[in-house]
């Protein structure tokens, strides 16, 4: 389990996030929401050890995250970054590298690793793309391949930084359903999301950040009730439910003098 305790972190000596206390819980999809520049991605990068911790600590399975060696840490949490290099590897080969933390002498991927790749590609519904080059894929297909790579890491926690960016609405919904399903299977899933509609609909827990600190955290219901999204994003939220019980949200920006 990942737990941040009074975490202050940033780049160099400059703190970008301050006094963050948060944990990614197994079986839950946690969405980290907040305006641009509020430190959402920095929080995930800090957990991955890519920023400088200025105060507080991050615990992974009860131990400070930097006390784990890189491979042991990778077995415990996977990370899907916002962007990655365009590579000309096949989908299967790139996903296979998700098994890197488990590779042992003689340093070849095993049959078991290959089977894991097949499983992950099937789970993401992209098994027919396995021999295609990553550079030939659409944004949605590429993102699914990246999530498949995180899946074969077989880590109990998965962190995703804006996974729905650049995806069409159908792909966004499909990806959110997959994340929800992963959480239902017992993984701790945490995603930075910009789409408040997806956040309110799919998340089990929402943490709202503002100016590098936690503004509020709770279930979507609690967050809506407390009106924190309205004040942080300066907007009005309307909610309606159709006959099938599905909820819809509309967002209206508040005028500057309102």
């Amino acid at each position, binding site marked *: 389990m990942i737990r941040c305790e009074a975490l202050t972190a940033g780049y160099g000596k400059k703190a970008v996030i301050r006094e963050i206390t948060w944990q990614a819980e197994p079986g839950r999809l946690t969405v980290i929401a907040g305006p641009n520049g509020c430190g959402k991605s920095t929080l995930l*990068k800090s957990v*991955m*050890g*890519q920023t400088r911790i200025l105060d507080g600590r991050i615990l992974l399975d009860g131990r400070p995250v930097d006390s784990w*060696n*890189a*491979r*042991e*840490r*990778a*077995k415990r949490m*996977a*990370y*899907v*970054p916002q*962007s*990655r*290099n365009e*590579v*000309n*590897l*096949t989908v299967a*080969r*790139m996903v296979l*590298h*998700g098994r*890197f*933390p488990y*590779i042992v002498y003689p*340093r070849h991927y095993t049959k078991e690793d290959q089977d894991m790749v097949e499983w992950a590609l099937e789970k993401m519904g992209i098994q027919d793309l396995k021999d295609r*080059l990553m550079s030939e894929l659409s944004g949605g297909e590429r993102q699914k391949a990246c999530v498949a*790579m*995180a899946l074969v*890491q077989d880590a109990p926690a998965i962190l995703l930084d804006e996974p729905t960016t650049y995806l069409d609405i159908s792909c966004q919904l499909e990806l959110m359903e997959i994340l929800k399903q992963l959480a239902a299977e017992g993984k701790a899933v945490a995603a930075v999301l910009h789409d408040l509609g997806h956040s309110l609909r799919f998340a089990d827990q929402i943490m709202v950040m503002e100016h590098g600190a936690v503004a509020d955290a709770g279930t979507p219901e609690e967050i809506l009730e407390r009106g924190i999204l309205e004040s942080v994003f300066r907007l009005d939220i309307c909610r309606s439910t159709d006959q099938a019980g599905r909820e819809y949200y509309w967002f209206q920006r508040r005028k500057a003098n309102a």
Partner: protein
Amino acid sequence: MDRKGGGILACLLLLFVLTCFLSAAVGSVNISFAEMLAVAAGRGRTVHENILLRVRIPRTAACALAGAGLAVSGAVIQNVLQNPLAGPNIIGVNAGAGLAVVLCSYFFPLSYCLMPAAAFLGALAATMFIYGLAKKTGASKVTLVLAGVSVNSLLNAASDLVHTFGNDTLSSTYSFRLGGFSAVSVQVLAPAGLFIVCGILLVCLLGNELEILGLGEQVAMSVGLNTRLFRFLFLTLAAALAGASVSFAGLLGFVGLIAPHIARRIAGEECRRLLPFTALFGACFVMLCDLAARTLWAPYEIPTGILLSFVGAPFFLYLLFQQRRRRSHD
């Protein structure tokens, strides 16, 4: 390796063997295969034995080693800097090695064994400087290449300065600057060759790590690769390969740029295929260029580096425009 990859590798190996044979057989005196076998059996004519053992075989080995070393060095640098325009001669790695060799020749004129070590240190210093620059400034791919060009000029100017002061002791520096194999000696080739063979084997062994590093810093870290350690290790290996090659072949340009690109088109990006293909292709390419340089204008022999530059410079311009076109499409 799958059947297709195995087939292509077998073809390249065949090309390598044929090129080695051609390089050893063709020259001012042509030596037939039967005569080569006779020399191998100890029954050959003395003149053929002398030509083969003292000139052609060391020269062929030097071409193959320098070609393979520079090509793999280029593949590693391109992967680690994630810049397809980077190559050991473009970003100043060769020039760094060159300056170190010139300095070494100036201060220790007869210490042949020191040359590979000096070249390695020079190449390493230039590599780390360029890498530091890329990391610190977040320079774009083209900007990094431009920075490399200026570092190249600076280091070459420093070499020229040393040459000006040490004209007598550095009589061979001119041919060294051009790059070629006419003056290659076994004393310099042996330690450098060992460096190159070990370096290539080590890079091939670490193919998975190199491939993962190419996926980008964040992905590499997330799958448990110690990126800082491996980036340093790979750049050190690239510098060792380029430095060792430069120590006996001089400032050969563009092999480290052309060979990985063509190998990538044939073999794809998977390092388990790419690295052996790059090494073999680089070796064949330099052997063929050297063969052309010493036979096409016979009885004159032009330095191999000049021919490589005539081939490499247009190729680099092609890559540069391709890169710009890709950016404008993005």
